């Protein structure tokens, strides 16, 4: 102990000759530089190549926006902002307003999320926290199979099974109990906004469920045990440890499902009735941005008509970006506040 404590003091008193130290340092520096040259080069190459690939994604998105804007020039110039505020879509008189399609897109996606989110969260939690392993893997497999069904098959099922079933069983119930709301009034059709929304919910359930299952599986076991050790029941453990831990992942899953619902085309086109009007009732036909493009593209006779349809695509893209950004802002807001939440 004694000598080692004294050593630094003595060195401070009489400084060592600087020459050898500097030489040694230089040699070490030289060696380090030479030794790491290939590594440095590799790092640079890696950084540039990954950066390029990442930038290409942005370039691709910008490219889409540019092409869509150029192709919709005619309509953009002619209608400018009226395109977004007008609900008059009249190809014969060459009057085009996107509002009915925006309404249809937002409403069908909202209905889809309203049904799919609780169901998906529930089944993901059941699979991770409740069910025995053998049953959970089988159910998980089935849920993932739902994602493998082509959307045109969903569309057929929607036309022949889901639509008529909703009309005969669910619509009267909704009208009976919630008929005071305008959205549940009027004639009940099997091709309708409601049918499209319900069909979409079935289509996005596998995505949300699969992602949520992985998110909940990733919650460390010690978080669960910490809650249980405090005397939490299983449900309290889920509420206290599992869901908060996976919160941002769950929102990511919902955004993924929303993206699918916004853009789904053919299945929606088959069951929504394709009427470019805003009807108060969910039992009435409607149309979405994506389904309108698919339906009308082959019939678009004039340049202005075509240009208006391309502008619908542009609107869809902007809508998707805005909703994504809003959802992300929501997550950031909640996560940021969590430290102060009571």
């Amino acid at each position: 102990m004694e000598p080692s404590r004294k050593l630094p003091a003595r060195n401070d008193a009489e400084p060592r000759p600087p020459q050898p130290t500097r030489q040694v340092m230089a040699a070490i520096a030289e060696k380090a530089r030479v030794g790491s040259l290939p590594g440095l080069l590799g790092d640079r190459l890696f950084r540039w190549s990954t950066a390029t690939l990442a930038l290409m994604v942005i370039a691709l998105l910008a490219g889409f926006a540019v092409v869509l804007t150029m192709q919709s020039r005619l309509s953009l110039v002619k209608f400018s902002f009226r395109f977004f505020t007008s609900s008059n879509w009249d190809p014969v008189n060459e009057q085009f307003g996107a509002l009915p399609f925006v309404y249809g897109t937002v409403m069908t996606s909202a209905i889809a999320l309203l049904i799919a989110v609780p169901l998906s969260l529930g089944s993901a939690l059941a699979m991770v926290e409740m069910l025995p392993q053998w049953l959970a893997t089988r159910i998980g497999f089935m849920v993932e199979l739902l994602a493998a069904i082509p959307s045109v098959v969903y569309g057929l099922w929607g036309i022949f099974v889901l639509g008529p079933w909703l009309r005969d069983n669910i619509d009267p119930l909704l009208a009976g109990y919630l008929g005071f709301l305008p959205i549940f009034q009027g004639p009940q059709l099997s091709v309708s906004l409601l049918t499209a929304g319900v069909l979409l919910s079935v289509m996005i359930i596998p995505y949300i469920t699969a992602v949520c299952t992985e998110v909940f599986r990733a919650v460390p076991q010690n978080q669960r045990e910490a809650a249980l050790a405090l005397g939490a029941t299983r449900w309290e453990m889920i509420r206290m440890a599992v869901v908060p831990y996976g919160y941002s992942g769950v929102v990511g899953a919902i955004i993924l499902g929303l993206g699918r619902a916004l853009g789904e085309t053919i299945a929606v086109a088959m069951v929504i009735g394709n009427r470019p009007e805003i009807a108060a009732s969910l039992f009435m036909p409607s149309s979405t941005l994506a389904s309108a493009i698919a339906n009308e593209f082959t019939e678009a006779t004039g340049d202005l008509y075509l240009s208006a349809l391309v502008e619908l695509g542009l609107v869809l893209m902007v809508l998707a970006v805005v909703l994504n950004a809003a959802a992300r802002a929501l997550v950031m807001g909640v996560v940021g506040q969590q430290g102060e939440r009571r």
Partner: protein
Amino acid sequence: MISLPASKSPESAVKVPAAEKLKVADLSAYYRGKTALRSINLDILANHVTAIIGPSGCGKSTLVRCLNRMHEVQAGNHAEGQVWLDGEDIYAPGVDPVQVRRRIGMVFQKATPFPTMSIEDNVTAGLRLNRRRLGRAERDRIVERSLRRAALWDEVKDVLRQPGTSLSGGQQQRLCIARALAVEPEVLLMDEPCSALDPISTARIEELLLELKASYTIVLVTHNMQQAARASDYTAFLLNGDLIEFGETNQIFTNPGRQETEEYITGRFG
């Protein structure tokens, strides 16, 4: 207690002959069909620190996890036998493990504050389970009392709204102790609480154990024999799922009764 004259010194309360808080009787535990513990019999005295030592894999964690029925939480695990808590068998049919765990708190090897909760919310996490709503004042009082008992109050009193995960490792572990104490358990189980901590944080927690045993019964699992010698009153030595020796810490470390114990504490294996 209520009518005790104020002049009575605190020692007189401690001098009361220690009662068995926990009595482990013929307890065996199984882990996916394999035997982890064989017929353990052990008395854990109130207001003392009982250390459980032994080499890795000897079953010391399993034993402590059996004491609040945490062992069975993982699929494929089960335990047989009795653990009497104040004369009630916590393994009797009809006993709700959730109620057991509210009386017997636990601190884990790795500090596990809830990452989405603030420091004060972490402390009151257990209180918010199935309980009446806490008033602001009562809540603050419990937060302060629990953090003081865990010797953390002075370090965090100005940052109570910060996330629990913003603290250092040693502070996080003391936060977990405060969280366990906030629900007023009778027994505190600690499963290698210092194994991930630096020596200074370890020393703080050992000091804390000495203070806490005045009010709680503590079971400390440790792989660190010096820690057992420093911090515990009684020591149980486990080997391959068997309880080899149990006695006063002093006696175990100075005059062990069994050869295996002596070989282990002198560092010949483990």
